[in-house]
Structures are given as structure tokens and as C-alpha cells.
């Protein structure tokens, strides 16, 4: 018989996590309950759904903090996120469809850590930090160090994800997110990515460019970031396109071929800079 606990607060959740490392940590269940009727029941369920201390979206001190338990619907409806973190709002709107967005959480996307997790390149491009906690205390992990391989992360067996902290982009930094899939709703990305590009006029001072679905985990593309630094936007688009191909190793699978993914990734990255060009003109 499956044990079930819905903790009242974070301390109770962390104590249960430490006492029962074999229990399933369940949030919106949109990853864990797929085909649940054909899967073995877990020993126990630690239910974080609507756990108040991790369900928030909060703007403060030059950052927006998003609780692990916040749903994508709550993220995309938050005015501060829409204004300051447009790529995250855009990613949230394209995760599944309404019924999925109403349940799927940030903590779940980060916890599953799939290479096609749509919010993950955004966390990379916006240089997010994750806050995790256990009975041993709290710590922060820069998101760029979070993923250790295919669906593996730095989360310890007694830890829970509490929040993601996203610094607000500066006034000269433009941000963008784009997903390519078979249709807009309910589709797993073939390639998707995000960028944060800091400009001086139309010259790229600095760029963080991250892609998903082209490796075993979401990745920053250092070769592209180096290639565009100091370039004018029009040249940066070409440089980015040339740099991305050799830097990624997309796979062939049921959804796409590697060569298709490579071409889409090149177009996507070039378009990040082209798109900025039109916006810089305005």
C-alpha cells in the first residue's frame, strides 16, 4: 500500500524527504503520472502540490524568484514575469496546453531535467540560480551547474527544490525564446532555445545563448557566445550561424533527424540576433 503525506510546511516536507528518500516527490504529476495505471505504485508519495511556502512568484531586489511549486499558468499570468522575463512567460505558454500548464510546475521541469524541458534554456540564458533545501540547510546552485547528464542533476537524495532566482536583465540586455515543434501546443520540442544579448547600440557586448533538444541536457553554446562578442548584430547573426553547427551534437530519433535539428538550430540562433536587429532599430 502506498503511503501518502501532504506536508503542511517546508520543514515537515524536508523531514519526510530525509526520512523517506525512496518516496516519490510529486508536484503537478504531469511527468510522473503519464500512463500511471500501467506503472508500479510507489512506496510512498511526498505530495508537494500546492505546498504554500514554495508556491509563489515574487519580484524583489533586482530579481524575480519563482517557487518550485508555481505552475506554468501562474508564471505566464504574472505581470512582473511578462514584463521583465518575457522568454520565461513565452516558454510557459508553450508547455503542453492549458490543462498541463495548470498543473505542471517549475520544480517539475527542473526536477525531470529532460533535454527537451522548455524552461531550461531560459534558466541558462537568464543565468538563474536554484535554491534547494534539506534538513541540513539551504544552498544555492547556479543553474549552469545543475545538469550533470541525461536527466541527472545535482539534487541530493534528501533535498527538495525550493525556488529559481532569476536576476532582472539590465536595460541594454534583450532576451528571446523560441521553440520549434510539430505544433504549438502539446508538442515536444525538436529544437528550442533562449538568449540574453547585451548591446551597446547595435554592437553585441555580451551574449548568453542556450539550446535544448540538441544534446543530452540543455546547454549554453560557448562557441556562439564567443563568436558574436564585439560584432554588430548583422554580422553576429552570421557568426552565430557558423559557430553553432560544429558546437552541437543533435541526435536522430523518432521526432527528427540530426541534420534537420542542426539546420533548425542554426536558423534559430541566427534569428535571435536578426530579431534583435529589428528591435534595436525601433
Amino acid at each position, binding site marked *: 500500500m502506498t503511503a501518502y503525506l*501532504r506536508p503542511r510546511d517546508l520543514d515537515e516536507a524536508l523531514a519526510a524527504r530525509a526520512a523517506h528518500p525512496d518516496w516519490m516527490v510529486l508536484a503537478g504529476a*504531469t511527468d510522473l503520472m*503519464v500512463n500511471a495505471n500501467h506503472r508500479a505504485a510507489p512506496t510512498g508519495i511526498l*505530495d508537494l502540490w500546492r505546498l504554500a511556502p514554495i508556491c509563489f512568484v515574487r519580484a524583489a531586489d533586482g530579481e524575480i524568484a519563482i517557487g518550485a511549486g508555481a505552475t506554468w499558468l501562474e508564471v505566464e499570468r504574472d505581470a512582473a514575469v511578462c514584463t521583465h522575463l518575457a522568454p520565461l512567460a513565452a516558454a510557459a505558454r508553450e508547455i503542453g*496546453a492549458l*490543462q498541463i500548464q*495548470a498543473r505542471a510546475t517549475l520544480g517539475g521541469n527542473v526536477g525531470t531535467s529532460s533535454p527537451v524541458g522548455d524552461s531550461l534554456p531560459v534558466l541558462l540564458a537568464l543565468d538563474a540560480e536554484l535554491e534547494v533545501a534539506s534538513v541540513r540547510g539551504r544552498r544555492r546552485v547556479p543553474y549552469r551547474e545543475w545538469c550533470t547528464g541525461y536527466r541527472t542533476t545535482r539534487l541530493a537524495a534528501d533535498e527538495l527544490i525550493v525556488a529559481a532566482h532569476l536576476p532582472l536583465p539590465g536595460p541594454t540586455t534583450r532576451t528571446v525564446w523560441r521553440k520549434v515543434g510539430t505544433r504549438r501546443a*502539446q508538442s515536444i520540442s525538436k529544437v528550442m532555445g533562449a538568449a540574453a544579448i547585451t548591446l551597446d547600440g547595435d554592437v553585441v557586448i555580451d551574449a548568453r545563448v542556450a539550446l535544448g533538444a540538441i544534446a543530452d541536457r540543455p546547454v549554453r553554446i560557448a562557441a556562439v557566445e564567443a563568436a558574436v562578442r564585439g560584432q554588430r548584430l548583422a554580422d553576429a547573426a552570421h557568426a552565430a550561424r557558423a559557430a553553432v553547427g560544429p558546437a552541437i551534437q543533435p541526435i536522430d530519433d523518432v521526432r527528427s533527424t540530426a541534420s534537420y535539428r542542426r539546420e533548425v538550430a542554426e536558423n534559430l540562433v541566427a534569428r535571435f540576433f536578426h530579431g534583435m536587429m529589428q528591435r534595436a532599430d525601433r
Partner: protein
Amino acid sequence: MKLAFEVNGERRTVETSPWKRLLDVLREDLRLTGTKEGCGEGECGACTVELDGEVVNSCLVAAGQCDGRRIVTVEGLARGGVLHAVQRQLVACGGAQCGICTPGIAVCAAHVVDRGLIAGCDDATARAKIRDLLAGNICRCTGYQLIVDAVIAAAREVAPGTEGAR
């Protein structure tokens, strides 16, 4: 575990595994078979119900998570024997054919109409929004156009933001 929750305005209790899908609790334990299973993977929306006022796929909700919560299924849309505007219009507009998707469409569309999610939109915007909001409800029969027509007609009938016209 003993699950106690509100279903269509009534308090219900069920002895169940916390891992059982809400979909199965509704269909098997409560015999509310209006809610359908299409895929069991969150893709098709046939199992759509409202959970605490948001639409969710009941195949992806664990029974334990429903304790103390409020559920509305397709059986809860009609009031006093009068169908919800969305249900009447699905019939009138031909928005239901084989019917497997229809309960999920009805729950999602009633949510869209009752919450006023397309209130104040011009016709073209409303139609685009309906397609977006109902993108998680797959229909293999109607081609969607007649469903969109039905939601538009229902929204005209129901004053936005009210329980209205049931």
C-alpha cells in the same frame, strides 16, 4: 487512504490508493462515467475536469492530491436538468460527433466561457483564443470549426464571469 473531497458540489468519500488516477476514482468508485479516457498520457484532454477552479487532465492527478479539493466533472455542468450553454451549443452547432472528446471539450469550454477568458474579444480574436485554450482537447471527428462555433455561441449567451444562463 480515505479520500474526502467535493465532487460537483457534493461531499464524497472514497477508500482508495493515493496513487490511483482521479480519472479512475471518478469512473470506477463514483460511477461518474461521463469523464472519458482517451490516451492516459495527458495528450488528448478527454479526461478534463476542473480541480479547484482550473482545468486539468484527470488521468494525471493522483487520488491523494484530491483530498479536501473541489472537482467539477461534465456531470456537474448542467443545473436543475438544464444543460450548460456550452453543452446546448455543442448540440445545436454539431460540435459533437462520435462523442469521445465531448465531455472534455464541454468542461474546458465551460471553463473558458464561465471565467470570461474570451470576454470582450472581437470575433477573430475570440476564435483564435478558443483554439489556443482548447488546444489540449483533441477531436478526430469535427475538424474543430463547429466546436469553435459552439463556444462562440455559448459565450454570447452567457454573461462573462457569471455562473449564468444554466
